[in-house]
């Protein structure tokens, strides 16, 4: 129907404090696509993820981001979530004292409210939860625990994907969801993400390693270094990177090259 891309990032510049991290990043994502953004440490991968979700600790100093034709940067974080953006955090935040069940239902209902839908009661929500817990192979005992509190690294990442499964975003952004996971946990998390894939949604997978992309197969792979996308290609680019290392791209890049995507 629509020819408008789901996400269109143009010449994005962003700082953390006074330090420029993103230096002219451009990227276009269409519905139904999975994009992998890879790059060495400090290249700006996480900054991109945080800026898209609206973390106020990051300052956008230039460029534009259109989401579904709207100016994304003008929206508060909760408005972005209500419009279908979801960030799976690299380091999920512990919130002692708030149960996972309460948190998930509050988020679910806030998003429904913002969309003019009725809130669901705890019983209805319990049915939904039961179904979605299975996506990430979790049992309901974790619902009564405080959000991420005392969770293992793997549990935290699974909890992120559980939230994603409940909130069903239009644009999911996974920020190094694979780091720190053993291969079994990685498979569980990847399966969850794959189950959520639909023709009308899209996913950006931010990762340091190619390993995750064996399970979540991307349509496009972008190499990010020094705040810009230096190279883009198909899924084979990830394998090539794995083999040759990031130096291959960063060294390979002609001076002053712009974004490729």
């Amino acid at each position: 129907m629509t020819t408008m891309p789901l996400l269109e990032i143009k010449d994005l510049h962003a700082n953390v404090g006074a330090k420029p991290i993103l230096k002219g990043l451009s990227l276009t994502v269409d519905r139904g696509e999975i994009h992998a953004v890879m790059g060495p440490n400090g290249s700006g991968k996480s900054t991109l993820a945080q800026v898209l979700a609206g973390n106020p600790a990051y300052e956008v100093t230039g460029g534009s981001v259109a989401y579904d034709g709207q100016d994304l940067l003008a929206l508060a974080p909760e408005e972005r979530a209500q419009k279908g953006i979801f960030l799976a955090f690299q380091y999920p935040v512990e919130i002692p004292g708030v149960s996972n069940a309460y948190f998930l239902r509050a988020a679910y209902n806030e998003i429904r409210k913002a969309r003019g839908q009725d809130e669901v009661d705890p019983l209805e929500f319990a049915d939904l939860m039961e179904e979605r817990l299975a996506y990430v192979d979790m049992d309901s005992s974790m619902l009564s625990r405080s959000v991420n509190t005392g969770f293992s690294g793997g549990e935290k990442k699974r909890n992120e994907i559980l939230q994603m499964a409940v909130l069903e975003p239009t644009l999911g952004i996974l920020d190094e969801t694979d780091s720190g996971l053993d291969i079994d946990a990685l498979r569980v998390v990847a399966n969850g993400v794959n189950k959520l894939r639909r023709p009308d949604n899209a996913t950006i997978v931010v990762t340091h390693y190619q390993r995750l992309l064996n399970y979540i197969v991307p349509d496009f792979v972008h190499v990010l270094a020094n705040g810009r996308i230096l190279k883009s290609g198909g899924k084979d680019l990830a394998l090539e990177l794995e083999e040759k290392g990031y130096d291959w791209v960063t060294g390979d890049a002609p001076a002053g090259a712009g974004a490729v995507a």
Partner: protein
Amino acid sequence: MSASVIDGSPAESYIGAFDALASAPPVPAAVRAMRRAALERFAALGFPTTHDEDWHYTSVSPIAGQEFMPLTARSGSVRRADLAPFTFGATGWHTMVFVNGRYAPDLSDRGGLPAGVTLMDLATAWSDAPEAAAQVGTLTSFENSAFTALNTAFMVDGAVVRVAHGVEVDRPIHLLFVTDAAAAQAMMHPRNLVVLGRHARATVIESYVSTSDALYLCNPVTEVTVGDGATLRHFKMQREGARAFHVGTIETRQARDSHYVSFSFAAGAALSRTNIYTTLGGEGGGATLNGLYMLGGEQHCDHQTQIIHAQPNCFSRELYKGVLDDRSHGVFNGKVLVHPIAQKTDGKQTNNTLLLSDTAQIDTKPQLEIFADDVKCTHGATVGQIDQLALFYLESRGIGHALARRLLTYAFAADVLETIEVDEVREGLERMSLERFV
């Protein structure tokens, strides 16, 4: 000397108002004498000033600057429906309601008490059963406390709770002190006595609430003894009116192997001070003093706790949390005194504060005086603000800024509220902590 406060007209006017007590219900001669002595002591002490170490962070000049009239006759027009916000939705509690300082039998429900429990109003005890109230004035002293002296001089009513040896009271006893518009410009001095016999067990909830925004002074004193092996869970809910002044003291004496579990919640009054003092007077006892205060606007709320370890092998645990918004001011002063013979004392005190604004203020002062050499006593205090990363995490899930802040406020208070073993109270306070800073 700050003559204007100590020798000001209010203190003198209270001495004049003392004669009004002649028309109050009759009391034993010993009580009359105690009142007279207390009045003289109050006149000598005057209201405390910030030069007084115990009142360094709290100025009572707003109280000293007012002229309050003692309310001795019954007054007010509180109906049962007016009490609903203050009863935690509980049914089956043993409830005594006091309106503007006087017992209101029509609003009360003392039914279903087990044998061996006495629950009566102090005025009736003095006229009909003076032995039930004989300990009033023996468990606390007004010698160095102007407010306790003022209470003692003007005490006319309150609750007497006595639980006999070995009796366990399953359902909470709720002492609900409510004021309404008729309390404007009045001072009330509820006086309570709680006596638990050997191996007795009970839960007593004192609530101080208002259905109006009248300006008044509520100055209760509660004396408590917890017998050998007995356990008292004692709650204080301070939800006075927005313009009210509240100064209250609870003083507890604990016998061997007894447990005193106190929780103080404070969200009301313009200016409040709560003193909770307990003495571990027998071996093997334990005191748990927890509390939560939630303040906004220009509210000032001061808690002073004092735990005296007078015997060996006792423990004390203390966790006070404060949530402060706007220009509010919180004060926490936790005294722990360990006597030379109180070896193997195990004490821990924590005070954590969440500041929701740049203009809110907390003064926190641990005060440990340890005279025994084989003890374990720790204290710690933290002051923090809403965690910005946690706030962003919640917002990134679609939860609006205001609700996210409220959730994190609730989360901050959650661990101290989890210690409350009375479900209705815990759930009620959880709701209040979610809704307090809308």
